[in-house]
């Protein structure tokens, strides 16, 4: 198995585990690293909780708070992937945590990341949820996502290996393997 393929699989497993470990969450239909659009290395096929239309509406404060919570959950989901990959690539937990400011700059600096990338999606959510405090919010989310990946690291690696071996697993298979990982 190619090492970079395994790194991509661990990246996707990081996303998946962040979602599975924080219910309630949208269903994950599949996780794939093969048969994808050439622009994509891997994909966790699931629905985002925060949607761009939410940024266009004027709503009551309580609804806004609920949507902010959804944007935050999405942010943890998106950041867990690159963090898992960094850890797989042998960066220490501390080095990853200390990199928060640098990655915040990557996310909110210029040039802006592509909208369809993990950082692009994080940028959209935090720009909306924490205007003027995006970088601070990014660091907080980065630390939280790092802690999620660390807490479930054995499961992330195990699922990453399974995804790398099979190329694609569906939601039911993922649920079974997630439960096995937690026994």
């Amino acid at each position, binding site marked *: 198995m190619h090492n970079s393929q395994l790194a991509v699989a661990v990246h996707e497993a990081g996303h998946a585990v962040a979602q599975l470990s924080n219910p309630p969450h949208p269903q994950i239909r599949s996780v794939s690293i093969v048969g994808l659009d050439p622009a994509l290395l891997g994909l966790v096929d699931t629905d985002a909780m925060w949607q761009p239309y939410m940024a266009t509406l004027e709503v009551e404060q309580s609804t806004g708070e609920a949507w902010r919570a959804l944007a935050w959950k999405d942010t943890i989901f998106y950041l867990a992937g690159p963090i898992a990959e960094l*850890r797989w690539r*042998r960066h220490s*937990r*501390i080095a990853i945590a*200390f990199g*928060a400011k640098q990655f915040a700059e990557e996310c909110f600096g210029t040039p802006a990341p592509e909208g369809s990338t993990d950082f692009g999606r994080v940028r959209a959510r935090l720009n909306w949820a924490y205007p003027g405090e995006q970088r601070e919010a990014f660091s907080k989310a980065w*630390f939280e996502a790092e*802690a999620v990946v660390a807490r479930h690291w*054995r499961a992330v*690696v195990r699922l990453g290996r399974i995804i790398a071996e099979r190329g694609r697993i569906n939601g039911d298979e993922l649920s079974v393997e997630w439960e096995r990982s937690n026994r």
Partner: protein
Amino acid sequence: MSAVAIEQDGWAQRAGIDRLLTLACGRTFTVDEKIRTEDWPDVLLERWSDEARRKPGWVQKPLACDFVAYAYAPAGTCVLLPVPALQRAWRQHGRQWAGLYGQRRAVNAGYTSVSVPVPRGVLMQAIVEAMFVS
């Protein structure tokens, strides 16, 4: 010096070793990494990893690592705690610290861990004193 992350789910990770440092002379040190996501002025010493089942936390169970690297992520600072001296300091002062500084419970899925927040200066002083043997 080289630093190697322990990535497999082998004995090393279960024993709490995240990183293996190898000096040029060949001597190796093992390090467990702990991260604090807020810049609190204390070190959280885990007394019980599972309070109900009375499973000891990392400060009072045998640890395979030589150092605990305890990092404060927002400040980007880290203290490197030598495990034997740290655990000796805990044996000497742990009960008193729990009474003085209280205990913090973290409720997780199926278990609750209990830690004691010891001010950094107090802990470092106690570690230094723990190195004196009379």
